[in-house]
């Protein structure tokens, strides 16, 4: 099956964009034992009642799919973390935004694999957002005995360097660029 931690992070990041955020921040910090992720958005936020509802399957705001029940991203996340000794928290304020915090225990045998981190970054950078001045900031840190990484990326800088991100060639080059960032200095 294809469900990696990166897939879950992509799912949650999509929520941030759908909340109409002008800025979405994705922060990954990895050690040998843990992967800690923050996904922050300054979109429309949730009331305490909504925040409670989104933790259950099939809750969605009805905008994306008016006649269908989806809404599984957060429940899957909570289930996975609960079963693998991780921790999570979602804080949100109506009109201000939402922060989703996840920490995965990489030593737990049931934790899904981390997955393709540069691929995740490319995937979320490609997500469309019509909010004017939209920006995405990605921050990646890794600290293990064999490897140290610390870099950040701004979507606006990539658009500046590549032009249209949906162009096939831009995406191919973006893939190369992102893969190269995973090289230690």
């Amino acid at each position, binding site marked *: 099956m294809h469900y990696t931690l990166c897939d879950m992070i*992509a799912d949650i990041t999509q929520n941030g964009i759908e909340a109409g955020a002008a800025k979405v921040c994705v922060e990954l910090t990895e050690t040998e034992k843990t992967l800690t992720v923050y996904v922050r958005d300054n979109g429309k936020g949730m009331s305490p009642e909504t925040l409670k509802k989104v933790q259950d399957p099939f809750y969605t705001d009805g905008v994306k799919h008016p006649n269908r029940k989806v809404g599984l991203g957060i429940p899957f996340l909570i289930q996975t973390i609960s079963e693998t000794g991780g921790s999570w928290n979602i804080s949100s304020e109506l009109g201000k935004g939402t922060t989703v915090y996840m920490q995965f225990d990489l030593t737990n045998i049931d934790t899904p694999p981390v997955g393709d981190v540069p691929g995740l970054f490319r995937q979320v950078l490609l997500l469309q957002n019509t909010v004017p001045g939209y920006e995405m900031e990605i921050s990646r840190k890794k600290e293990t005995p064999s490897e140290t990484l610390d870099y950040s990326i701004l979507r606006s800088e990539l658009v500046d360097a590549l032009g249209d991100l949906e162009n*096939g060639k831009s995406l191919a080059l973006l893939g190369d660029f992102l893969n190269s960032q995973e*090289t230690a200095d």
Partner: protein
Amino acid sequence: MAKMSLEELRKLRSNVKSDLTRRDTDGKSIQIIVGMGTCGIAAGAKETLDAFIKILDEKKLADNAIIRQTGCMGMCANEPTVEVIVPDMPKVIYGNVKADVVQTIVNDHIIGKKLLDNLILDRPSIDITK
């Protein structure tokens, strides 16, 4: 691979662009739209997306292609789904497009201009597609 800087990325992009502007390819681009809702991702749509980018680049078609993600197209049982829009061909939604099928789509549909009948999905779900 050495760490690429933004400046190097910019240079690489403009090198390829200048080759293409000489050719008049306005309105003749290939469009690939990959369904990437939760169902799509669980079925491997991200690998499908990566495969399209890689194979189109290998065939030197990438600069002429637009690649997008969309949400769930409503055919969750047949994910990954991909809409393929190629000049002079009907618009088609293919289902069950695992990463290994992408090569066939590029060779036969995009380059060979031949429909892959056994992969076409019948009708998109009209309540969520226009």
